[in-house]
Structures are given as C-alpha cells and as structure tokens.
C-alpha cells in the first residue's frame, strides 16, 4: 500500500517535470489537480485552526458574543460574488486594509527604518583596521578597512540613487553611480543565493525519485 502511494507521488513529480520537454496533457492534469488540492487544503486548515478555535467555540460557548461582528463581516466578504450587493464586501476588506496599514506604519518605522539607520551611525573610518592590516596583511583584513566607509558613505550613495528630486548629473552622478554599484553587488549576491535555493529544491526531487521511490541510488 505504501509503495502505491509513493508511486502516486512519483507520478506527480514526473508529470510536473514532463513540462520541461513540452506542454502536455499529463502536466495540465497535474497542474489543475495541484490547484484543486491546495484550495481544498486551505479551506480545511482555516476551518480547524481559525474558524473553530477563534470564532465558533467562543461564540457558541457564550464566552464572547462580540465575535458575531467578525462572523458577519466574514460572511459579508462573499457578497463579492453578487453584482448588486458586492459593495458590502468593502466593509470586511476595510477591516483587513485598516489593520495592516496601521500595523505597517509602526512595523516599518520601528523595525526597519530606525534600527537600520541606527546600525549605520558609526564612525566613518575605523583606524584600528589599518593597524590590523599592517600587522597581519591579508585580503580579508584589507577588505575590513572599507567596512565603516561603506556602511556610512556607501549607504548615503545608495539612498541618493533613490532620491529623484535632484537630477543625477555632474558630481552627483558619481554618488548615484557608486550607489548603483553597491546595489549591483546586492543583486549579484541575490542571484547567487537564488541559484542555491533552486538547486536545493531540484536535488530534493531527484533524491525522492531515485532514492525513496525507485531505490536505484543510495
């Protein structure tokens, strides 16, 4: 029985990979099956993890009658399917939009802006890095000399690149270009790490196919 189900998983894997050769009915069946299963699973997960514990049980046990409000708002979302009553769904949408907008203002301000700026409030240059490099010359110690200048002046260059109220010409162009160069380093690192993720996922699939299913590799 177990092998039957593992074979189903194997066929699902092969069906999706078959798209690499060309689009075909097997892939389309797998693709639609995937969406259907995912949609069905989400409904079950929400039912058992939110609807029952956070809404239904407290409401029916009488511990919190105020929950009738989110229940009505939740049901009101489904008026989107109606042309005449669709406007009612704006009310629950506003609950979601209002909550997240308010949370985002504080979250981005306290978590991202303040602390990230604070982390760059350091001396522009750290003389100790020079003496470290002099006593122990190495590539890494040489690179460390640029640490503080990059975190302070480099950050200003990156931020200036995003500042479009002034035209980037003359001397200012060099500041923006330095910012762009740093951004390119960031994007290059991003590309390298994206490759890492994709290959990890692919290896996992091959591991499943050849080791767990077909058992032709150890």
């Amino acid at each position, binding site marked *: 029985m177990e092998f039957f189900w593992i074979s189903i998983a194997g066929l699902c894997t092969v069906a999706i990979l078959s798209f690499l050769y060309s689009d075909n009915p097997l892939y389309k069946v797998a693709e639609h099956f995937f969406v*259907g299963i995912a949609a069905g699973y989400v*409904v079950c*997960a929400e039912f058992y993890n939110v609807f029952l514990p956070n809404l239904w049980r407290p409401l029916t046990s009488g511990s919190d009658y105020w929950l009738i409000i989110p229940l009505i708002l939740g049901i009101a979302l489904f008026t989107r399917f109606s042309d005449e009553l669709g406007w009612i769904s704006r009310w629950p949408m506003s609950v979601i939009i209002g909550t997240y907008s308010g949370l985002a203002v504080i979250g981005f301000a306290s978590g991202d802006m303040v602390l990230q700026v604070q982390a760059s409030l350091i001396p522009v240059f750290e003389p100790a890095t020079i003496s470290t490099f002099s006593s122990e010359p190495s590539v890494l110690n040489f690179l460390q000399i640029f640490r503080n200048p990059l975190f302070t002046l480099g950050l200003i260059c990156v931020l200036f690149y995003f500042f479009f109220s002034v035209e980037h010409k003359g001397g200012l162009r060099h500041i923006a270009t330095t910012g762009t160069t740093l951004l390119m380093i960031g994007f290059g690192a991003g590309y390298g790490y994206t490759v890492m993720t994709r290959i990890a996922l692919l290896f996992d699939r091959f591991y499943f196919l050849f080791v767990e299913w077909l058992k032709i590799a150890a």
Partner: protein
Amino acid sequence: MKREIPILITLVFGVFMIVQFFIPHPAVNDIANRLQNWAIIVISFSYVLGSANILRINGELVYRRAPGWPYKLVLVIAFFTMATPGLILGIAEGSWTNDRLFTFTYVPLASTMYASLAFYIASAAFRAFRVRTWQASVLAITALIVMLGRIPVSHFIWQDLPGIVDWIMGVPNAVAQRGILIGAALGAIATGLKVILGIERSYLGRE
C-alpha cells in the same frame, strides 16, 4: 454609505493599530487586541473566499463546456477530494487527508513545481545573462564569487574565498539591502498613513 463606512472602518482599525503602540494602557490594549482578533477571523474568511472563487470560476467553465473543461473538472474534483474528507475527518497526523492525500500528492506537486525553476534559471544563465555593461559585470562577478564561495569546495579554490563571500554578504550587500529597506520603509509608512486617512482609496474600487 458605500464609500464612507469603509473609509471609517479603515480609519478606526488603522488608528487603533498605531495608538496601541504609543499608549500601552490596558483599555487601549484590550480594544486593539479585540480588533486584531477580529481581523484574524476576517482574513481567514478571505482565504476561504479565494478557494470558493477558484471553485466558482472553474465550475462555471465546466458547466459551459469551455475549452479545456476536462482539466477544470480535475481541479473541481481535486478540491472536493481534499476538502470533503478534510472537513469531516480532520487534517492532523493519522487522518487520510494528511497521511495520504497531502503527503503523496500535494507535497510532491508543490515541491516539483518550484524545483523545476532550477532548469529555467540554468537556461537563463546560458541564454540571457549577458555582461553588456560594467554594472552588469559587477553583478555577474559578485554572483560568480557568491556561488563559488558558498559550496563546500570553495576553500580548495582559494583559501580566502569563503571569507570574501562573508565580507560581501556582511558589508556591501548589507549596505545595498539597508538602502532598499530604508527606502521601502519610508514608502510603506507614507502609503499606510494615506490609506488610514482616506487619501488613498483605490482599494475601494471605482464606484
């Protein structure tokens, strides 16, 4: 009624989310906590709405025998194959939906869907990753160093390579990301305030 009440709801919820941070009084906290729990419930409904919408659109296509309807039928059948036993028997370990359907269909399908991107990234590396400008070459060189430096044989290639990658990630990359984070934070704060104050209303639609 159709626009004013939603704007008012957005204002009340948005303001309480901000006020609770600045005024940590129990009364404010209680109201904010209640509003947050309501939002959690409403969001949960929105996920069910999303699933219902997929079902409605595909169900209609099957009913009208639109082109490709057999595939849509597969989707509808898959939905009920998961949702019906899932809602009746549960989705915890030991249930058929979890141990069989989820583990042996959803997991391999989702994993392979994302894994196949590795092939396209390889294809793009060969056919589209062109170093036409010096800035593109900075990107390419960084990518090559990072890819080489993050594999177990990196120190055989050059002893300092792993350390250089650590430096790239910890200094120039962190500087670039910090610039993006600060810029995005300013944008998010401004947009959030515009939404709460009713200046930005595009989420309400046209009428």
